[in-house]
């Protein structure tokens, strides 16, 4: 017996430093991937979704421009060029007679069609009007507070620059569309904040407590969902007093939009919570004496926050469209507030639009934004669960 013990191998110690990874060496990329947080993974995944990433960039640019609309627009919001009523869009040219002159527009001569009384603007190829950059032009109050006259781009001293034409008061459509973005783009965000709050509170309560809270919430969601949205929005916004100031109307409209839109979100929150509250970690938290507010907010919400963000992204365009539709009908925002819907209100008379088709141009940014949000939302939904292949 003792003989065999002696024969046993001596205890072996490798002198090389211990490397736990020597079986499978992780490449730096792999290591980065395994150590990345959930949000990091989502971001990478989103970037792989080309269309969504591209939409994100477009939206980021548009929202960034909301802060500096006054600089971007060549004219101030309400500047009336009374000599240029219903002026068609002007092109920006670089070359004149084969010679490079830099960006300029051709001046136009005005005449009237004596039969239809339609203004006619003929391009005058002799009047070159060079654009100015980083220049002083129309005066405005930056953010409604600081008086300034700085623009990124201005027409020449006596010339014009109507990229998208002018409306019936001779106001530059391009500038007005840029200004309109400020209202149209933000109204969706404020509206979604309202519906997000309602959705999380009501859906959260319904999903966590269950019982009569749940069934009351469910029934009211069913009733609201069975009502057609637009007529309801129309009725509610018709109820806004005419005497309210534009800013109050703005908030009134966002609240109306949010009040009806929360149901989808509440349902999503509820069904997720119902599933998650049965998980072991929720039970553990409850046993340790955590309050419902903490369990929902601290443990359950982060679990499906990414899904929430995706569904929120998909419902922002709905809000933007809602505002556009209401303003288009004359029930939402009204002049002097400028939003895309308010601008489109002038396109209601289809015969006028047939003669002055550029009045329809505010359709373009609406469609672009709605498409971008839809693509981004789709990409986010795919990225929301980065551990799933």
């Amino acid at each position, binding site marked *: 017996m003792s003989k065999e013990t002696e024969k046993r191998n001596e205890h072996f110690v490798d002198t090389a430093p211990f490397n736990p990874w020597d079986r499978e060496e992780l490449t730096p990329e792999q290591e980065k991937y395994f150590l990345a947080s959930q949000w990091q993974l989502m971001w990478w995944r989103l970037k792989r979704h080309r269309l969504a990433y591209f939409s994100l960039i477009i939206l980021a640019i548009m929202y960034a421009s909301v802060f500096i609309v006054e600089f971007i627009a060549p004219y101030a919001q309400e500047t009336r060029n009374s000599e240029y009523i219903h002026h068609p869009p002007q092109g920006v040219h670089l070359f004149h007679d084969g010679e490079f002159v830099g960006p300029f527009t051709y001046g136009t001569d005005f005449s009237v069609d004596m039969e239809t009384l339609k203004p006619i603007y003929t391009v005058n190829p002799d009047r070159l009007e060079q654009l100015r950059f980083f220049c002083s032009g129309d005066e405005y109050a930056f953010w409604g507070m600081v008086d300034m006259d700085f623009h990124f781009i201005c027409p020449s001293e006596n010339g014009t620059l109507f990229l998208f034409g002018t409306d019936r008061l001779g106001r530059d459509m391009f500038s007005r569309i840029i200004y309109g973005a400020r209202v149209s783009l933000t109204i969706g965000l404020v509206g979604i904040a309202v519906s997000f709050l309602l959705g999380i509170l009501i859906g959260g309560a319904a999903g966590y407590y269950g019982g009569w809270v749940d069934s009351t919430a469910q029934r009211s969601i069913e009733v609201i969902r*069975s009502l057609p*949205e637009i007529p309801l929005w129309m*009725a*509610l916004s018709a109820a806004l007093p005419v005497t309210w100031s534009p800013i109050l109307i703005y908030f009134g409209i966002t609240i109306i939009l949010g009040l009806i839109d929360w149901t989808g979100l509440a349902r999503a929150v509820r069904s997720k919570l119902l599933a998650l509250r049965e998980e072991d970690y929720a039970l553990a938290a409850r046993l340790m004496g955590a309050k419902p507010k903490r369990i929902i907010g601290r443990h359950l919400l982060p679990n499906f926050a990414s899904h929430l963000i995706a569904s929120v992204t998909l419902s922002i365009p709905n809000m933007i469209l809602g505002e556009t539709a209401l303003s288009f009908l004359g029930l939402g925002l009204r002049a002097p507030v400028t939003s895309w819907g308010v601008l489109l209100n002038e396109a209601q008379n289809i015969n006028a*639009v047939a003669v002055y088709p550029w009045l329809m141009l505010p359709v373009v940014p609406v469609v672009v934004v709605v498409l971008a949000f839809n*693509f981004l939302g789709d990409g986010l939904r795919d990225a929301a669960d980065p551990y799933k292949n």
Partner: protein
Amino acid sequence: MLTYLARRLFVMIPTLLIISVLVFVIIQLPPGDFLTTYLNELQAQGEAVDPAKIEFLKRQYGLDQPIYIQYAEWAWGLLQGDLGFSFEYNLPVTDVVGDRLWLSLVLNFSTVLFIYIVSFPIGIYSATRQYSWGDYGFTLLGFLGLAMPNFLFALILLYYANVVFGTSIGGLMDPEYINQGWSLGKMMSVVEHLWAPVVVIGTSGTASMIRRLRANLLDELGKQYVVTAHAKGLSPTKVLFKYPLRMALNPFIADIGNILPQVVSGSVLVSVVMSLPTTGPMLLTALQSQDMYLAGSFLMFLALLTVVGMFVSDVLLAWLDPRIRLQGGVGK
């Protein structure tokens, strides 16, 4: 089946009741009422208003009653088909709306029909030929259809019809039939005009339906019983139509609950843009002039349209799928 029908009908009653309360509250929301606006107008025009006349008008319209009595009278009237009194037209609402309710019904019904007829074959095609050019093409079209707000689409269509063909596609019938009694010619004219608004309202619904059917069918096609059926030598069409399609059809029909409010919403807007003689344009003017009973009737009618539509879809679903009628669920 009968018990299911009865239960489902019973569920509808409280829903409609709550909706009627909501509608009544909404039409009461605007500050003041039609009468005050009317009196103000008279006074602004310098006409003397006799207090006795005000009292008389108030009593006649029931505006002196407390609000819950006004509601009860209104709701009771609705049940009996009496829609109240339109202040603006000075006529009973029933006379004012005329054919509008029916035309709305026809418009919405045709749109839903259009959505099903178009999305059904396309959905099947896209699922069976996944990732083909056709599939990609329809997906792209679908995205555009989903994202394009339908009232803008209507505007653009109107514009092009005006510029390219020189005609106006607005309206629902040829001008000579307006205010005429119903005749065969009028009906044909309505059918001829119906396509434009139906296509405009139906695009987004069609797009989402195609996506839904495609996803459902793809799920089913990947299952093992399909492989088995193929392995046993069933012809591909028979495999498709006999089993997976029937399974994929359920959510397709259940989805009408989502589609219908959308369609009704869209039809209101598109009707205004295309000036169709349906509820849309009149609802708008009624809302603007605080003609509350007229607006209320329209809102109630539109809500009824969706609620009844959902009821029909649930019944259809129960008829198709025994699991639903036996378990008593109301579908997804």
